């Protein structure tokens, strides 16, 4: 009787272990998630930015355009954000997610999401959220956020602090 009970307990332990293990393994979200400092962004139009805790600020009197590179590890971007501060009363910090491919004959092909813009002047950092980035093709294209930062306004500077992309495995 005792032996049967022990076997029952052991069998229960096995079942529980299997269930727990399955739940742990299957329940894990299979994502690669990275946050990048905006000091990695490159200006492609406009004056050089200033750096602020590894973010970038526009101290100039004209807008700047930057590309902020993202590692493409799986080819399946999912969600992301760009953390920005907009201190201009009438121009927004605006970003879009690019997936670009250059072919052998020198042509460029790209997908770009609908842009996300900051809602108005504030001292706070806000996130421009890209919550459903559709899989781009080709999957091995280069990924980046492309953003514009408005000029300085009365000694107040707009900025990009960091950005993030989560990829599906």
């Amino acid at each position, binding site marked *: 009787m005792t032996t049967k009970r022990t076997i029952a307990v052991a069998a229960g332990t096995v079942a529980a272990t299997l269930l727990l293990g399955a739940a742990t393994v299957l329940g894990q979200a299979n*994502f690669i998630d990275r*946050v*990048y400092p905006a000091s990695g962004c490159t200006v492609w*139009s406009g004056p050089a930015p200033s750096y602020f805790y590894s973010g970038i600020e526009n101290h100039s009197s004209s807008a700047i355009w930057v590309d902020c590179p993202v590692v493409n590890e799986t080819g399946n971007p999912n969600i992301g954000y760009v*953390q920005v501060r907009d201190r201009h009363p009438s121009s927004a910090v605006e970003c879009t997610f690019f997936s670009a491919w250059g072919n*052998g004959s020198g*042509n460029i092909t790209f997908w770009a999401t609908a842009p996300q813009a900051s809602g108005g002047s504030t001292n706070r950092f806000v996130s421009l959220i890209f*919550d459903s980035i559709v899989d781009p093709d080709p999957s091995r294209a280069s990924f980046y956020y492309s953003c514009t930062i408005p000029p300085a306004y009365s000694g107040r500077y707009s900025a990009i602090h960091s950005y993030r992309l989560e990829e599906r495995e």
Partner: protein
Amino acid sequence: MSSRAARDRAGRGRPALHVVWLLALAALLLFAALGVSRDRSRGEAGAGHPIRAGLEPGSSDRLATADATRTNGPAAAPPVRVAPASEPAQPDDAAGLDENAAANAQIEKQLALFDQLAAQEAYDPLWSRAATARLRDALLTEQRELKHADVQCYATFCRAALQYDTSEHGETGFRRLPFVLPWPAEIFVHTTGESRTDGVMYVARENATLRRATL
């Protein structure tokens, strides 16, 4: 006799018990191995990432909440994984060529799909005419370097054949296209020719996405 019978019963039960415990041990080892392999494949920003713990895809609110906790200073960015020296960093030449060919085939297929949709889509008289005019006006107003903008909107998307006056203007003009549209939209752009002045853009209708071609 009765104690001997009891020992016999216990003796018969023991092998079964051992098998059960061995199964349990095997299951534990299996799941431990699976967990380790997943963590390795995910790199350092894996399941233990503190932000991931509160986030699932599509959850903008939670994403924003998580961000709000990090706005008082530089973000605690997880280090980007660096491939160890023993890992092959680049595909070999043949694989790279195959990848290029596959990518170019995908692009050709995407362009063919747009052409097919343009031929098949029912014309939306209310939206198409107004959208065509709005898009053409926005492009020519915002990008004065454009020499030519041939725009046509269908039921779910628009096509714009564009030509800039110089290659320099072409480069910046194509890159700024997402920001000059009259409505926020996903776009697909394909530049053509060696002069970098020509290309075609496909723009999704408001609140829509562009159809993807599958190989």
